[in-house]
């Protein structure tokens, strides 16, 4: 009975460990794409192997104890009732040894933790690019601070950083507590109203990743994702300059009709589009919406059909979010979508 239980546990443990190899993904902490996540991954592995060893020791001890106890029972020996005081010196020594070894192992793990912490801190030293991420219910505002005047860039629901550089992300929130977690790159950090905290990123190679809010932040906590793109330095500069450019106002056709609707209807009171009268600050900046990969903080992949669906029924796609349903005819909505798609 207890033996069957032990065998079952052992088999599943082996199965589980072999499963570790398949933890890949755009949002996986086992990937180690960033300097910090790689260091944490190494530490995690150390903890994991110690845990496996300790677990196997306990299982073996349990199995042997059960076996030995059973033998005692069959033979009618073993201790019964209350053992006389101090009659088990061997076991007392065993207990002291066990406790000491446990303490030593823990001390080793604490040291490993400390060194990893130091290594992470060291990796972030030096000149850094400064990015501000502000968590809102339920989207991400992103600001790039450049010491050169006029080169401050604002965007939303996308984080683009250069490979190989130190990036210092400062985090804050005007409403509730959020947490920025890019598992492939680094550990998570909370965004707390009234405080700012920092997250340091350093990613050796370009890649596409996904971040998600990790602190429960209300109704749509589940749909608060942030696509993260790590670009080579040249690509990053290209993206940055494109982001600084004012998108051209359409001169005619469907896109112009859409532009007029955007400015004339409710849209402009919440959203900002650079170079236009639309300068609302309470909703995501749409100056280059068409270049993003997702709509509404990862709620939908970017496509013409999805833009249309989102504008037609924002409360159906992401119930409870702050975007109201603006009354537009199908044709009007088509025009707005056509305009938004020019905002590359």
């Amino acid at each position, binding site marked *: *009975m*207890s033996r069957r239980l*032990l065998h079952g546990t052992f088999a599943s443990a082996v199965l589980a460990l072999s499963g*570790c190899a398949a*933890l*890949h*993904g755009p*949002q*996986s902490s*086992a990937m180690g794409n960033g300097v910090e996540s790689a260091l*944490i991954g190494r530490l*995690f592995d150390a*903890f994991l192997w110690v*845990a496996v060893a300790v*677990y196997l020791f306990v*299982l073996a*001890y*349990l199995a*042997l*104890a*059960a076996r030995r*106890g059973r033998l*005692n*029972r069959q033979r*009618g020996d*073993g*201790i*019964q*009732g*209350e*053992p006389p005081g101090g009659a088990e010196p061997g*076991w007392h020594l065993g*207990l002291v040894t*066990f*406790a000491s070894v*446990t303490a030593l192992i823990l001390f080793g*793990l*604490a040291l*490993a*933790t*400390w060194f990893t912490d130091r290594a992470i801190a060291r990796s972030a030293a030096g000149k850094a690019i400064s990015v501000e991420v502000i968590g809102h219910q339920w989207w991400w505002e992103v600001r790039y601070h450049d010491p050169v005047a006029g080169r401050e860039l604002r965007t939303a629901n996308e984080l683009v950083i250069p490979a190989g550089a130190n990036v210092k992300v400062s985090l804050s929130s005007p*409403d*509730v507590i959020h*947490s920025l*977690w890019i598992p492939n790159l680094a*550990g*998570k*950090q*909370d965004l*707390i*109203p*009234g*405080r700012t905290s920092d997250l340091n990123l350093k990613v050796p190679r370009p890649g596409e990743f996904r971040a998600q809010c*990790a602190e*429960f932040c*209300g*109704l749509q906590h*589940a749909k608060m994702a942030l696509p993260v793109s790590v670009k080579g330095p040249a690509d990053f500069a290209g993206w940055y300059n494109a982001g600084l450019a004012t998108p051209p106002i359409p001169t005619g056709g469907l896109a112009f009709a859409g532009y007029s609707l955007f400015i004339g209807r409710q849209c402009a009171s919440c959203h900002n589009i650079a170079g236009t009268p639309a300068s609302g600050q309470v909703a995501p900046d749409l100056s280059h919406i068409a270049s993003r990969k997702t709509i509404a903080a990862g709620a939908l992949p970017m496509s013409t059909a999805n833009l249309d669906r989102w504008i037609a029924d924002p409360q159906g796609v992401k*119930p*409870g979010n702050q975007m109201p349903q603006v009354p537009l005819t199908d044709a009007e909505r088509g025009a707005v979508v056509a305009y938004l798609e020019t905002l590359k």
Partner: protein
Amino acid sequence: MSDGKASERTYLRDGPDLTGAPLHDKLLATWQDRPGFWGWAGSVDHKSIGRRYLVTAFVFLSLGGVLALLMRSQLASSNLHLLGPDRYNQIFTMHGTTMMFLFAVPVMDAMAIYLVPLMVGTRNLAFPRLNAFSWWMYVAGGSMLWIAFVLNVGPDAGWFSYVPLAGPEFSPGKRVDFWAQMVTFTEVAALAVAVSITATILKGRAPGMTLARTPLFVWAMLVVSLMVIFSMPAIALASAMLMADRMVGTQFFNSYEYGDSLLWQHMFWFFGHPEVYIIFLPATGFVSEIVQTFTGRQVFGHTAVVLSLVATGLLAFGLWVHHMFATGLPRMGYAFYTAASMAVSVPSGIQIFCWLATIWTGRPRFTLPMLWVVAFIVTFVLGGLTGVMLASVPVDLQVHDTFFVVAHFHYVLIGGAVFPLLGAITYWFPKFTGRMMNERVGRIAFWIAVPAFHLTFFPMHFLGIMGMPRRVYTYPGGMGWDTLNLVASIGAFVFAAGVVVFIGNVLWSARNGEPAGDDPWGAPGLEWATTSPPQPYNFPHQPVVLDATPLWNPERAVARGLRVEDREVVLTTVFEARPDLREPSPVPTLWPMIAAAATTVLFVSSIFAPWAVVIGSVPVAIALIAWFWPKDRSHEGEPVVD
């Protein structure tokens, strides 16, 4: 024992002249509850209250379990629409709140209320009326929360209610108020029980039951009760501050008005982490008792186990910040909490070492309760090891608030507390009901529940590592999470089936089980020295304890001389358990129920109008004054034992 002053009237006492059936009749007349509803409602018998506490806790377990199944149905695959976000958020909040506040803590209280007086060999708890009051408060608080939930005003800010999300601006309406007030109810109930248990253990132990001879479950409950007394005030204060922020415009947690949102987290976890050990330590007590009985020997390292309980109780208060590693507090401070969080695994390790050494050197019988102990070790150790991982700040920053943590604490709470609890119920079932639980059906339940538990929660470790956050009502496809979630959902339903078989076995066996004698397992504790189920007066004569395993000692001793026509118990000294006083024990009364009703009116109406606190306190005061109305004992002699 003498009769005190000579002028005093003489009382009928048990002794060589009054024993056996005549004594039984007299004691029954003194200690029995009156029949009918009012007799039940006014009962101050710890067994009656313990039983109803236990049944209530299992009702809440079932309700919380249904919520878990709803969540697992919603998460079985990506992009499901079984539940909307609003309903889902209420459900996960209710699941956590119900399981932590309305099941896990009360169920351990329930076992202690029933067992502690029997295990220490006394007739009733200290402060039995307070204990009766506590059950009414618990039922009222739990019912209020569930009624609110059914009416769609269930809390939806998580069982931890982090501000500012739970504050007035981001959670308008009454949902969070019901949560905060439910906390008030349960903390009153838990504090009342803790006080009763502490006093019973310190002063009510049978003569001769020195602290060194006190059973390990009783030790665990002493530590736990003291932990409740020290940790509950933090949450009491925090929930009162939250209510004040929400209702009367204070700004304790509003960082834009010089408040601080992290203050809530400190106060919540200063209670919330000890809470985990408040649930876990009684379970270690169950394990110690079960292992002792079924190995036929005293637990190896009795002193080491007691010291481990105490050490865990102390360390538990130094760990709360490990719930807050991602908040960006100073790194230097984190190191302390990492060390403390790791250190707390040492006493748990010592306990496991001692239990296994006991099995090794004893003559174990692998009965059903022992099987649950084995499942406990196999499961809990895994949860403990992932706990060590979570103590490491960098590792925690990755897996914090993910399904890895969900896996971790279900391993610790179900593996560490519920498995021993199910073992304990199987073990003490004959004492509770006078009948044995069906072994065959019990084994079926065991073999369904334990593997299904692992099937449910083991995959969640991987989900967490693969980036799945907690508390999401849905998730997109293409993340590699679908299969593991489906496995977990299937496991959850099978696990629930196992628990249903267990509960079915309890219900069936209570009526149809094989009759059990006083001591069906050959156990050494005092609770087995009386009938199954125990008589209302517990023991005909006051037991006297000569060693740590009294029923294994061929020599039995009792003391005589307690009054039989009045409720009277013996009080002993705290350390040596020398007879100290004869103390009258309260008779049944409806005042605790009335006081609880008045308090309930105050608490519930204060959700809707702050002035209810002032006006509602008048009936509460009246009820308490009536409850504590002084009794004239001037005609009686001083109840002193020579």
